[in-house]
């Protein structure tokens, strides 16, 4: 039984009303229903952070949220960061510092970093560690990610 529930929400600034299957995770809803494939799946148990999105402005693991919980909420995914071809400053500093290799963790990293800069415009190393410890990067771009975030903070 895949019951569906109608939900209304804001996605990257636009209001939407959709049907969401009960039992579907927000991650799957974002990728398979909203077709926003920038958000990635790496573990489905909240450990890797590849699926990080902003829910009401806060970074969460979208694999640990039910799609139906989106009702009445505001969702921001990586796609929202570069509006009209202009990159977010974090996206630019990630490029400048080559803060990724395969790029699979990158959307989640940038979302986490974005939320960090919102709450702490001048993060220390510890702040960065705290904010990003749930975002795994097997390519090991951590040192460059740290530098990119600090650089973005200056801009």
């Amino acid at each position, binding site marked *: 039984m*895949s019951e569906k529930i109608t939900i209304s929400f804001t996605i990257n600034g636009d209001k939407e009303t959709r049907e969401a299957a009960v*039992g579907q995770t927000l991650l799957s809803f974002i990728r398979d229903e909203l077709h*926003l*494939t*920038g*958000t*990635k799946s*790496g*573990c*489905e*148990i909240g*450990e*890797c952070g*590849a699926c990080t999105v902003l829910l009401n402005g806060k970074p969460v693991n979208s694999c640990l949220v039910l799609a139906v919980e989106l009702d009445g909420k505001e969702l921001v*995914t*990586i*796609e929202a*960061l*570069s509006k009209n071809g202009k*990159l977010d400053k974090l*996206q*630019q500093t*990630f*490029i400048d510092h*080559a803060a*990724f*290799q*395969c*790029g*699979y*963790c*990158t*959307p989640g990293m*940038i979302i986490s970093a974005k939320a960090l800069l919102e709450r702490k415009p001048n993060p220390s190393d510890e702040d*960065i*560690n*705290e904010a*990003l*410890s*749930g*975002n*795994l*990067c*097997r*390519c*090991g*771009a*951590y*040192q*460059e*990610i*740290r530098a990119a975030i600090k650089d973005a903070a200056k801009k």
Partner: protein
Amino acid sequence: MSELKCVGKAVTRKDAIEKVTGSAEFIEDRFLGPLLYAKMKKSTVAHGKIKKLDLSKALKHPGVKTVLTGKDYKNKIGLYLVDRDFMAVDKVRFWGEPVALVVASTEKAAAEAVELIEVDYEELPGVFDPFEALKPEAPLIHEELGSYEVVPIFYPKAGTNVANHFKLRKGDTEKGFAEADIVIEKEYYVPQMQHVPIETHKAAAHWSPDGKLTVWSTAQSPNVVRQLLAKAFEMPMHKIRVISSYIGGGFGCKAGASLEGLVVPVAQKFPGYVVRIVFNREEDMQGTFTRQALYSTLKTGVRKDGRITALEYKMIWDGGAYTEYGVNIVRAAGYSSSGAYDIPNVKTDSYCVYTNNSIGGPVRGFGMCEMQWGIERQIDYIARELNMDPLEVRLINGMKKGSTTASGQVVHDVDYEKCLKTVADQIGWGKKEQPEKGKLRGKGIAGLVKCPAQPSNAASSAIIRINEDGTAHVMIGATEMGQGMLTAISQIASEALNIPIEKIDIKVPDTDFTPYEWQSVGSRITYTCGTSVKRAAEDALGQIYYIAANLLEVPVEDLTFDGKIVYSTKDPEIKATIREVADSCKKCTGEGIAGPIIGKGSFVPKNMTNLDPETGQGNPGMFYCFGATGVEVEVDIETGVIKVLQLATSIDAGKAINPQLCTVQLHGGTIMGLSTALYEDVRFDKGVMLNRNFTDYKIASIDNTPHIESFIIETPETNGPYGARGIGEQPMIGVAPAVANAVCDALGVEFNTFPLTPERVWRALKEKK
């Protein structure tokens, strides 16, 4: 060489904007169209006969299209030793081996139907330890081993569990030991680890009515996938198209072919559908390659002055249930078995042994992390025994220009000494720092070397098309899994063509359109594909000159090209823009000169040979890349927690095509090495993989990764493009032994295995007391 314009510069990654905006397509993002979902039914025993496999309930489940078993696949598959069925036939050899594949119109229906399949096994005695597997009375895991097809450089022993025995005999070890003042013999153990790229393995297949098969795959090597599928399904290659996307990390686990073939017969049965299979994290960890465990014994004879006179290395590898790829790791570790050292007398036996553990296979380093763990720990034992500085022992024995490897290959473009001294200087070698109370500090160093482990006919090719406006497309078959290949290759093309990199387009491969590449493995692409691209560029450039010479009616020798304009060196007013050359290709009279410009280049190594089957002597290395790692640690003597205070790494890249990306690679490999040194090992209980998710299998995260100082050393590789050699795997190799050497320096206790978990350190300290 004249001043380089693009090579050696930190140009921005070609895939940068796509990757930071979330628009980079990974393979799953391209599974479009009417979809079917495939899910595996997996074995619940590690070794057993399939007595009953009842699919009837699953087949009746709503939404289910079909259910396949191993018998639906006619042939086996394998890269070097064809020992693997797509799914188990009659018998399972590891826990979690697929026994059936359910295909349904939704993922949910497929998952539900998997639960409805009934399987009965007659359990067979399992073998989970290669030493047990070597005993004459051990149960056989592959009864048919003698009949398997094998590349003739591997030596399986029919009627046993030995999938390969690599033998190496250099010099005379008896004589060498006789010359030695001391003999040290130690045992080492390196456990299994998992690659865990954040993107798991994924594939999809589509069959079109005209009999064309299209496969989308996370594979590191679309050409090898095509080759293996062509063979397994008895199809001509032009009827198979393998498409690659950006790969979310590979590290070896996506080399060869893995899950692609599973969905091929399904696609054939349901033309028009895209049949997808996506491994979840648990399936990925347990069902794809793991790094083979290595049990080894290392015996060295050493003179009082620190010179190693003889080495005997016995390696027993836990190859797991299938070793189609693993046999070559065992070979590579064998022919490299003296590590970064010039040892005159070497005797090595490296055995690949079947067990009922998960499938062994390639991981970053391809046997070198495992094999050089022993070497680099042993050097520290030697130093301690002789009361010498471990750095000194490394310098005395380390390879230099003209040294010979274990296989007798002479190395040329080497500055290992510089690699070692650079990291030693960085971490303040020889200076002892004052620790905090309750803690001890130590420093350690380890060296490393690796050549690409590839067959001597592993080839590469490239095509460059010059557009009418003078921009260019570079077409290659290598894959982009983060290593920065697209960027480095574009830089080589830009340099050789003298066309700015912004005017060069490059894409990930599609076997229908991009030329042949053996595999994106072994840190070989910059060298092999880079050489092909350079040749293709030179070919294209030749055509540019040819056309310009005809157009301008001056001899080719008088022409030069500055990236925009071809002009006569005698009279710069005689000139044509690249646009004019590329576009018109004809004289003003209308007479044609040549068609569109298409440069081609290909490469196969000329300096490799096969190895003597008895002595393992010969030239297996296309190039050798050296490096070193230096570490300072502080250890909490009560908790056993290791804190890395300093981490330095040096790699001799020959020429860093892109220093920024090269540095990022150095960091990445070093972090992966550190993660294995401190945290990672796969745990099995009678073949059952216990830690198969990120809750139980831990890898380094940002908050436990220290700052790394990295050094790119540039001793040009004579035959490499612009002097470059590959460096992708290397930075990982020295980290675990360097950490262990440092911890040993701090605590005075030895570790012959890792990871150095707090508990392991505590135990070692307790035993010392």
